[in-house]
C-alpha cells in the first residue's frame, strides 16, 4: 500500500494552528530567557556580595528570586513543554523529526532542568539558612546549569532553521545536525538577550525597593542599567552575525519586510538605550510601573515580531530543510535512510497516500469535489495560512483576491515547479489541483 506517515489534521478556524505555538513560544521565550539571564546575574551579585562583604545584596537577591519563581518557574516551566505540545498538535512530523534526531540531547537538557528546578527552590528559600560560601557555590552551579539548558536547546532550534552544512544529510549524525554554522551565533545572540532581560527585570525589583532603602535601590538600578546595555550590545552584535549564517530561503522571506524590520529594530534600540541610560544617570526616574511597561514593550514589539520573523524565515520548511510546514518530507536524507515523499504524492495524489483521508474522499467525484478541495487545501496550506474569507493569520484571501479557478490553478502549477523559494514545491495530480482551485474559487475572496 502506498501511504505516507501523515497524521490527522488539527485546524483552528480563521487562524490556523501554528499561532498557538507562536503565542506559547513568545511567552516562554520571555520567561526562559529571563531565568537564564537571572541565573547569571545571581552568580555575579553573589560573587560581589561575598567578595566585598555586601550582605545588603542578599535581600535583593531573595526578592528577585521570589519574583523569578513565579515569573519563570511557574509560567516558563509550563510554557516550555507547552510549546512542545502545541507544536506537536500543529506540526506533528516536524516535532517528530526533532525528537528522533535529538532525543538524547533533549534528555540531557532534562538533567539540567532537574538541577535548575530543585536548585532555584534551594537558592531562594535557603538564602538566609545556609552560609554565604555554600550559597555562592550554589549560584555558580545554578548559572552553569541554566546556561547548559540553552547550550542544549540552541542546536535543536538552529537545526529547525537549517542544519547549516550538507554533512547531516550524508551522515544523519546528531552532532552534524546540532553544530551548524548558525548554532554559536544564535547561542550568543540569545545569551545577550538573556543578560539584557535579567537587567530589565532587575530594574522592576530594584525600583520597587526605593522606599526600603533608596541608596541601595539607586545603586542596583544603575548596575541593572549597565548589565542591560552590555546584554543589548551583545544581542545586536550577534544578531548581525546570525543573519549572515542563514540560508537563501530565509533571506528571500526577510527581503519582504526588511525595511520595516530594520526600522523597528532601530527604534527599539534607541528607546532601550535611552531607558538604560536613564537607569544609570537618573535611577530615581525609574519606577516599577515604567519598568514593568518596558517588559510589555519587549514582549510585543521585540519578541512577538522576532519570533514571527524567525518562523517565517524557515519557510517552506519546519525542520532541517527536509520537512515542509505541511508535514511532507521534501528531500532524501541518505544518512537516515529517509526518502522524499514528493514523487509518490505527484504520482498518486495526497488523498491516496494520506492514511487519515476517509474512504469516501479518496477519489474525487463531481459530488465531493468541493469537500475534497477543502480537505486538500487544509492539508497543503493551513499550517501557514488561514483559509476562510474571514481569515486573520496570514490569510490566503490576501493572496488570491479576485482570482477565478484558472487563476488559482496557475499559481498552484507555478508552486509545483518551485517558482517561489519560500513555498513548498508540491506537485499534485491534475484532479487534485483542480479540486483545490475549485474550492478556493468558490470562496470568492
Amino acid at each position, binding site marked *: 500500500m502506498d501511504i505516507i506517515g501523515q497524521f490527522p489534521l488539527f485546524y483552528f478556524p480563521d487562524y490556523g494552528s501554528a499561532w498557538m505555538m507562536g503565542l506559547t513560544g513568545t511567552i516562554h521565550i520571555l520567561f526562559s530567557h529571563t531565568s537564564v539571564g537571572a541565573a547569571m546575574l545571581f552568580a555575579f551579585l553573589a560573587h560581589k556580595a561575598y567578595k566585598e562583604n555586601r550582605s545588603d545584596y542578599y535581600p535583593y537577591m531573595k526578592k528577585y528570586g521570589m519574583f523569578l519563581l513565579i515569573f519563570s518557574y511557574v509560567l516558563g516551566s509550563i510554557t516550555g513543554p507547552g510549546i512542545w505540545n502545541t507544536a506537536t498538535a*500543529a506540526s506533528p512530523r516536524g516535532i517528530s523529526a526533532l525528537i528522533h534526531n535529538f532525543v538524547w540531547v533533549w534528555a540531557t537538557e532534562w538533567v539540567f532542568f532537574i538541577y535548575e528546578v530543585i536548585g532555584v527552590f534551594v537558592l531562594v528559600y535557603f538564602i538566609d539558612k545556609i*552560609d554565604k560560601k555554600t550559597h555562592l557555590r550554589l549560584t555558580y*552551579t545554578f548559572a552553569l546549569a541554566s546556561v547548559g539548558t540553552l547550550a542544549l536547546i540552541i542546536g535543536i532550534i538552529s537545526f529547525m532553521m537549517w542544519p547549516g552544512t550538507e554533512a547531516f544529510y550524508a551522515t544523519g549524525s546528531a552532532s552534524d545536525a546540532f*553544530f551548524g554554522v548558525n548554532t554559536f551565533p544564535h547561542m550568543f545572540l540569545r545569551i545577550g538577550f538573556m543578560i539584557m532581560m535579567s537587567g530589565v527585570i532587575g530594574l522592576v525589583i530594584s525600583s520597587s525597593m526605593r522606599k526600603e532603602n533608596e541608596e541601595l535601590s539607586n545603586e542596583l538600578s544603575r548596575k541593572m542599567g549597565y548589565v542591560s546595555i552590555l546584554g543589548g550590545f551583545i544581542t545586536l552584535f550577534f544578531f548581525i552575525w546570525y543573519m549572515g549564517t542563514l540560508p537563501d530561503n530565509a533571506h528571500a522571506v526577510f527581503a519582504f519586510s526588511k525595511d520595516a524590520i530594520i526600522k523597528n529594530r532601530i527604534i527599539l534600540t534607541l528607546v532601550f538605550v535611552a531607558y538604560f541610560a536613564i537607569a544609570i544617570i537618573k535611577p530615581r526616574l525609574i519606577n516599577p510601573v515604567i519598568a514593568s511597561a518596558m517588559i510589555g514593550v519587549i514582549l510585543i514589539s521585540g519578541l512577538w515580531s522576532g519570533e514571527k520573523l524567525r518562523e517565517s524565515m524557515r519557510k517552506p520548511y519546519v525542520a532541517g530543510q527536509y520537512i515542509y510546514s505541511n508535514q511532507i518530507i521534501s528531500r532524501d536524507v541518505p544518512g537516515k535512510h529517509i526518502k522524499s515523499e514528493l514523487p509518490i504524492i505527484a504520482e498518486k495524489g495526497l488523498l491516496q497516500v494520506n492514511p487519515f483521508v476517509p474512504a469516501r474522499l479518496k477519489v474525487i467525484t463531481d459530488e465531493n469535489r468541493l469537500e475534497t478541495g477543502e480537505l486538500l487545501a487544509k492539508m497543503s496550506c493551513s499550517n501557514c495560512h488561514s483559509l476562510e474569507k474571514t481569515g486573520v493569520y496570514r490569510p490566503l484571501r490576501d493572496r488570491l483576491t479576485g482570482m477565478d479557478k484558472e487563476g488559482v490553478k496557475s499559481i498552484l502549477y507555478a508552486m509545483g515547479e518551485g517558482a517561489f523559494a519560500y513555498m513548498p514545491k508540491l506537485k499534485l495530480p491534475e484532479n487534485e489541483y483542480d479540486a483545490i482551485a475549485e474550492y478556493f474559487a468558490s470562496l470568492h475572496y
Partner: protein
Amino acid sequence: MDASVLLALRDPAGVPFYPIVFQVLYILTWALHAAFVLLSLGAMGLSLYGSAKGKTDKYWSILTPHLIQTGKISVSILIVLGVAPLLFTQVIYDPNWYVTNTLSGMWIFIFVYTMVVGYSMYYWYYYANKAQRTGSTLIGFVSFGILVFAGILMHNFAVTSIMPQQWMSMYAPNGVVNTSGWTFNLDIIRLAFMVSLSIPVVGIFLQNYSHFLSTRKDFDASFISYSAKLGTNFAVIGLLISAVLFVLWMLQVKYLFHPVSLATIVGVLVLLVMAKINSNSYYTTLILVVVALLISTMRELIRFDIMSGLGYSIYDYPINFEIPSIVMFLSTFLVMGFVGVAFLLTMAWKVGKSEGVFDGSKDVMVNRLGQSTLYIMIAWMVIYFGWGITILFKNIL
C-alpha cells in the same frame, strides 16, 4: 487501524538506540512523575481542609502551610519530571502520541493555559494563606479545581492514545473529516484509581514528615505524633480504596491475573501492613516506589499489548544508532545528575534538620559534593564547546 498504517506513522529517521531502553526509561520516569502528581494532589487537597480550619487549631496551623509548600514545590517538580516520559513515549510510540495530539489539539492548548492559571493561582493561595487573608481557602479550592481539570485533560490524552481502533471514527465520524481538535475520552475507573492513589501517597508523606521532624527540638512531640497518626489513617484508608479500584480496573481490562497485576496487589498489601505498623516510614516509601514502578509497568503493558495486537511492535522499530549524543546523555545523567542532585538534596536535608543557619562549608559531604558539581559542570562546558568547534571545523573547512 491496520498494521501498515501504524507502521507508516513511525518516523522515517528511525530510533537512535534500542527501543527497549526508551521503554524502560519511560516506565521509570513516568513513575517518578506520577509520584509527584499524587503528592501534589494529596498535599493540596489536604491543605484545603487545614486552611478551612483556620489558625485556631494548633496542629493544623503548623501543618497547613507546610502542606501548601509541599504542593507548590511538587507541582514544579512534577512538571520537570513529566518532560521525560513525554520525550521517551514519542520516540517509540509515534502513532499514539502524534495522533492524540492532533485529535485533541484544542484540549492540548487549553491544557497548557489551564496549568498556567491553576499554578499561578496556587501561588496566590500560598501568599493569601501566609497573610491569613479571608478568602484564601476559596482561592485554594479554585486553584485545586483547575489543576485537577488539567489532570483530567492529561488522562484524556493517555486514554485516547490507546484507542487506535477508534482514531479514524474520532477524526472522521461517518466519513466527514473533523479538524476541530475537540476529541475527549475518559476511562472513569482508571482515572478514579489514579486519583485515589493521592490519598495513600499523602499519608505516607505525613509519616515521613513526622519522622523527619522528630529530631527537631522546636517541634512539639504531640504534633509529631498527631501528624504520624494522621498519615497512618490516610495511608491505610487510601490504600484500601486504591486496592479496590485497582482490582476493578484490572477486571475491566482483563489483566487481573497477570503477574504484574498480582505483584502490584502483593505490593499494596505489603504497603498496607508497613503503613499500619509505621515502624520506619522511609522503608515504606521504598516499597511505595516499587509499587509506583509496577503501576507504570502495568500501564505500559496494556499499551504494548494493544499495539502488538494490531501488528505494531516497538521492538521492530528500525534503529539508526546515534552514539555521541547517548554518551553525552548517559555521562551527564549518571555523573552530573547524580552528584548535582545529591548536593542539593543533601543540603536541603541538612538545612531541614538544623534549627539555625547551616554551615555547609564546614560539612565535609556538602562541601565535597558542591565542589564536585561545580567542576563537573565546568568540564561539561569545556567538552561541549570543544565538541562543537571540532564538528564545525570538520564540516566547513
